[in-house]
């Protein structure tokens, strides 16, 4: 197509300025800062690999890294599997099904602060959850969900899962609706029963969506911050502190900008793995 030589660049300019100023340049600066000691008051001082050495000797860093991995291995499977059932459930042709789809989506649009407050109240020692477990005979005395080192992290995980369910349900719903109905018709003619249809058609056709959801929820779980900040503040005794929470407090409470940047670089390397899989996948989709 015949266009002026600079025209395409003019269209790209505003977006590229923003990405340059708020992503590429900060990215380089973050890497550089991870090799310095910087407190926002005195000039940054180059300290080579000291921040990384200190990180690896910092028990709290390992603790937050462990918590982040725990988050991954608990939250991701829940967010990959449960929404499939929800999607199947709301994919029925029933009167008023749109109402249920919307109801399940409400936590997605609600801010995490509201969600955190709502769950805080459910988790109270004489709150709703303990009461329900009590009448079901599961517990004999109330559990201090958010203030016990054994349960705080898991209690917050439940909120992360609860808030994400609706979103991933919709992705699976898109997947279910993209399966051509003549596949099922053909299977019925061949005499396949319900179970065979599920295992031979639904699950295989849904696999690409399972992959999308696994990657998206992994990246999200690596970066968990808000629910921790709002509900437990990382406590008690750092038992619910995740890597991003650690970076945040090191940077903005203790003003250890260089040290926090080093932890940020580690977070980056960890998310890179999932992101590369994600990109490969999107690249494939792109050629369609």
């Amino acid at each position, binding site marked *: 197509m015949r266009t002026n030589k600079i025209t395409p660049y003019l269209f790209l300019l505003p977006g590229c300025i923003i990405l340059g100023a708020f*992503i590429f340049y900060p990215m380089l600066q973050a890497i550089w800062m991870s090799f310095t000691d910087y407190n926002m008051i005195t000039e940054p001082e180059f300290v080579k690999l000291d921040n990384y050495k200190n990180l690896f000797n910092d028990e709290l860093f390992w603790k937050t890294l462990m918590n982040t991995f725990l988050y991954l291995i608990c939250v991701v499977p829940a967010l990959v599997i449960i929404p499939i059932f929800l999607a199947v459930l709301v994919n029925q042709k029933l009167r008023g099904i749109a109402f249920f789809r919307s109801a399940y989506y409400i936590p997605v649009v609600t801010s*995490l602060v509201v969600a955190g407050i709502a769950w805080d109240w459910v988790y109270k020692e004489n709150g709703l959850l303990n009461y329900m477990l009590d009448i079901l005979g599961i517990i004999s005395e109330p559990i201090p969900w958010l203030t016990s080192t054994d349960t705080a992290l898991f209690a917050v995980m439940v909120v992360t899962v609860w808030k994400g369910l609706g979103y991933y349900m*919709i992705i699976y719903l898109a997947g279910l609706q993209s399966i051509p109905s003549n596949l099922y018709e053909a299977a019925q003619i061949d005499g396949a029963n319900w179970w065979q249809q599920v295992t031979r058609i639904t699950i295989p056709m849904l696999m690409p969506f399972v992959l999308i959801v696994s990657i998206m929820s992994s990246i999200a779980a690596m970066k968990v911050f808000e629910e921790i900040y709002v509900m437990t503040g990382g406590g008690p005794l750092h038992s619910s502190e995740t890597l991003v929470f650690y970076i945040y407090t090191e940077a903005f409470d203790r003003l250890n900008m260089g040290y926090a940047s080093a932890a940020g670089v580690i977070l980056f390397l960890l998310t890179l793995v999932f992101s590369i899989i994600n990109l490969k996948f999107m690249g494939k989709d792109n050629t369609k």
Partner: protein
Amino acid sequence: MQSFIKKVFLYLLLSVVTLFMIGPFLWLLATALKSGSENIFQYPPKLLPENPTLTNFGKVMDTFPFWRYLWNSVIVATLTVVLNVLFCSLAAYPLARMRFKGRNTIFILIITTMMIPFQLLMIPVYIISLKLGLQNTYLGMVLPHVTTAFGVFLMRQAFSTLPVELDESARMDGANSFQIWLRVLIPLVKPSIVTLTIFTFVSAWGDFLWPLIIVNDQNMFTLPLGLNMLSGTFTSDWRLIAAGAIISMIPILVIFLSLQRFFIGGAMKGAVKG
């Protein structure tokens, strides 16, 4: 008969899940409606208020400048959406429909930004924003989020599905590239613009981490920040915290319920398109 039982079972299952999804909010609402004379910490907990009252909402409005926070949230979300849709669709147009040097490199660079977590960038972005004088400003809250790889990708996909003949015939009629973009192409990709608008709006409206860093002036607080402060202030009176949380939920709930088919349709489309 069998299908009737199946239906009853399905509705029962759907309702149980509904209780799990919106139960915490209902419980919060019940607390916000309880009067001062009622013991909200009693065990077993009482779901229904004895004498439902709206006084908690009035009381919390005295200390919780809801309208101010709402206004800030509206400005931040609107600016983010408008600029993001504008910049992304501008950038996507040449990437989808023009040939020029460096096209693939630029596209790959843009997509690469998806891999960089904001949590790594927040420290330098904070320092840059301070230097640019963006602390406690709307622009400061907005600028880092006004071009997203997702947006460029989504708009590029939308533009590349349109036939090339459109551009050619418009050009023969004497239109320049900008006019083609604005008059011919943009009207044809409205569904994708709606998708991008809704995605951007939800994330800007609920954003907490970045405003928390860049804003310390309470007059500039958005709803999530204001609510977070409220829950720190009234740790002793849960009725007020609950009332504040319910009030701050109303705007997004109204928007969601009136546009729900776009929300859910947009999320489905976003998923299918990657």
